[in-house]
């Protein structure tokens, strides 16, 4: 057991750069202020979102309390959302940490049980998941606790619930990842098999989610109302997307009585059972899924001069950078998962929602598009979802960071910073445009928008992509994360992605809000968006090139 603890300490230290931070702080006091400054900026940036969310929860509590005293449903809302996010994104996170980090090769060679390695790595992921969970769950818990004048037990249970909450979704994600990796650790084309395996798994998770929901949602409106108005009916309905969230909610809502304690016990026991099952399967399957996974098949194929000449082609420097970025993004699993897969996933989630539960939700939409205002709203919804996938595309804000220790090559090759940025911009834009086509066509078809409407939304989202790309690259050029030992850190644990995502979400959100609030005419709305995005894109481009040209010289790898 000591080995597991000491392994956790080492992994924690390297994953969060503790020693490096201490060293920097010791060497230069300014580093402490820099670090504190970044934390302060992050807190300030997120505060309005958290405040808005808390306000929404307080309002929802007021409304829901009037329905048979069901204010506790706000806790279910936060918990269920958080669990689904952890399950969904945790799957990719654990696969990367378990199988694709550089340290795994060394760890496997040490006299450590597979369950120790997995347990330590699982704990690292768990700590990161709290960052997503706490902002989602804490506000509704506090709102409920204060408004319902909850007792001491409520607060004790809530601390335990929050601490244990990610265990079940993360264990499911881990079990799934171990099974996928074991099943795909075959043949010469492992990387391809694994990516296919991951895609199938994620669709399987979505499929199961939707199936459970479909089973629990009756199509008969009277039945629905009956269920909702039953005692804690809303909690049961909402928790259908992730059933254990009902136990958490009920343990808190009923914390004053023995039933709450029983739900708490049930939840704790289920959490422990899931973790044990994960460690047990890990002990049996982890090495089998890992060993040999880093082998790369080589053809060592004898080729003649004519064949070689066919492969030798000339490209401009900008396109050379583009293709370098393109191949690397496609072939590094962590980059592919975080940058390419979401492009297909966002529209897929909506298509699946439509096919599984669509009949109910979308019937209302058909009524909406029968008049101009309705079509306007549908179009804005499609645009918003497309823009959401644009602003959270991690490709631009990790453009430099992804180069990591290879960045020094970009410093010695005779390619100007301008050309390098252009190559990276083209690369990000190609990905985003593919995503925009997927999103607008899939969502436009579901919302039954006209072709011209879909095309206009595509143009607007693409113009927005230009601005988002420029801002994202700007942020990454300002402070690229070049020192990492695991590609996952360059994309998933890179603050630049988060900062860029939320900043771009904020200004795009404000812009869309202004359009919806003041312009009731769809054509005027579109024209304003096109004009703003085009002007902003053109204005930012020279600023970015100018800044990058100065910054590239100063960045020393």
């Amino acid at each position, binding site marked *: 057991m000591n080995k597991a603890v000491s392994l956790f300490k080492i992994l924690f230290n390297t994953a969060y750069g503790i020693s490096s931070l201490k060293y920097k702080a010791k060497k230069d006091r300014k580093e402490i202020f820099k670090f504190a400054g970044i934390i302060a900026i992050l807190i300030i940036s997120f505060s309005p979102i958290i405040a808005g969310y808390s306000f929404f929860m307080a309002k929802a509590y007021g409304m829901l309390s009037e329905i048979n005293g069901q204010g506790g449903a706000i806790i279910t809302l936060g918990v269920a959302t958080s669990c689904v996010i952890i399950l969904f994104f945790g799957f990719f996170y654990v696969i990367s940490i378990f199988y694709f980090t550089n340290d795994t090769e060394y760890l496997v060679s040490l006299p450590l049980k597979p369950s120790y390695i997995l347990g330590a790595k699982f704990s690292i992921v768990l700590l990161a998941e709290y960052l997503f969970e706490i902002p989602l769950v804490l506000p509704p818990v506090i709102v409920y606790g204060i408004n319902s004048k909850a007792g001491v037990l409520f607060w004790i249970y809530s601390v335990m619930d929050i601490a244990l909450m990610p265990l079940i979704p993360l264990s499911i994600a881990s079990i799934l990842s171990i099974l996928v990796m074991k099943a795909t650790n075959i043949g010469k084309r492992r990387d391809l098999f694994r990516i296919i395996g991951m895609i199938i798994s994620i669709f399987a998770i979505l499929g199961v989610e939707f199936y459970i929901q479909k089973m629990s949602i009756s199509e008969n409106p009277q039945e629905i109302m009956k269920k909702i108005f039953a005692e804690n009916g809303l909690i049961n309905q909402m928790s259908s997307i992730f059933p254990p969230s009902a136990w958490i909610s009920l343990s808190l809502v009923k914390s004053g009585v023995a039933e709450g304690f029983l739900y708490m016990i049930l939840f704790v026991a289920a959490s422990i059972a899931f973790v044990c099952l994960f460690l047990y399967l890990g002990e049996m399957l982890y090495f089998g899924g890992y060993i040999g996974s880093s082998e790369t098949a080589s053809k060592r*194929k004898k*080729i003649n001069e004519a064949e070689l000449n066919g492969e*030798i*082609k000339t490209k401009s420097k900008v396109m050379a950078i583009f293709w370098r970025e393109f191949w*690397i993004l496609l072939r590094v699993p962590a980059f592919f998962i975080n940058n390419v897969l979401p492009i297909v996933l966002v529209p897929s989630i909506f298509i699946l929602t439509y096919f599984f539960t669509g009949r109910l939700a979308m019937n209302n939409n058909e009524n909406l598009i029968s008049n101009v205002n309705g079509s306007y709203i549908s179009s804005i919804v499609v645009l918003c979802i497309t823009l959401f996938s644009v602003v959270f595309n991690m490709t631009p804000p990790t453009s430099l960071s992804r180069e990591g220790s290879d960045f020094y090559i970009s410093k010695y090759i005779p390619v100007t910073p301008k050309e390098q940025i252009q190559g990276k911009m083209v690369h990000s834009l190609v990905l985003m445009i593919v995503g925009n086509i997927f999103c607008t066509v899939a969502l436009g078809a579901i919302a039954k928008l006209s072709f011209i409407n879909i095309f206009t939304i595509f143009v607007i989202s693409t113009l927005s992509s230009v601005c988002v790309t420029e801002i994202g690259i700007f942020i990454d050029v300002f402070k690229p994360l070049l020192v990492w030992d695991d590609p996952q850190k360059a994309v998933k644990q890179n603050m630049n992605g988060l900062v860029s995502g939320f900043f771009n979400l904020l200004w795009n959100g404000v812009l869309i809000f202004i359009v919806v609030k003041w312009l009731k005419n769809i054509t005027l709305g579109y024209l304003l968006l096109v004009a703003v995005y085009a002007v902003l894109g053109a204005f930012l481009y020279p600023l970015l090139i100018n800044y990058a040209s100065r910054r590239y010289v100063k960045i020393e*790898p």
Partner: protein
Amino acid sequence: MRTRKVGDERMIQIEDVSKSYGGSETKAVDGLDLNIEDGEIFGFLGPNGAGKTTTIKMMTGILNPDSGSIKINGYDIAKDTIKAKMQFGYVPDNPDMYNKLKGIEYLNFMADVYEVPLNLRKERMTSLLERFELSDAVYDLLQSYSHGMKQKIIVIGALLHNPSVWILDEPMTGLDPKSSFTLKEMMREHTLQGKTVFFSTHVLEVAEKLCDRIGIINKGKLIFCGSMDEIREYAKGDESLENIFLEMTEK
């Protein structure tokens, strides 16, 4: 701005270059002056942490000197950056790069950024791949290459544009005897065309046999620069380079 004139024989000109890291008072390179002429193989020697790689990184534009200037074939690396970079081919000390690119993709990338015309790149790629016996591996990912193979493909990538100056950081590390021999042979051929090779090494034998001149750096300062004859004269005896090196760097 290009300042190289006819009769000006310096292919690499390093003037009073200093560099320290992260505001530290200890200088990794301290007031380095070095001139390397056309047609010369120059060996840069020094113990670990002496400042060899820092010097090379400054020559190639990876690091910025705190003071001083560096010119490659007359172009200032800080002011006329792109033209200066076009003058050299650089082989870093660690060949672990772009693991997810195939050999052919890496070579095409290097040929593109150094603007090598199609017919020339075909000719050079074919002959260099043949010479380093890498033709069979060119469709494989660099990830599948051994250390030596990676070193060789990087050497090929650096030579595709037939640069005036070769800058090689520990180029022999990881190479098998045959490839090492080929590289040394190529260095000689290169200088016979009036071009320059600048390389750092720990292998004193290689430096002794191959170099026209050597420079020895210790604690950031150049403590000797001259031919083998000059170094022996300096040491006043018929000592081996190893002994002279040890004596100089242990002071």
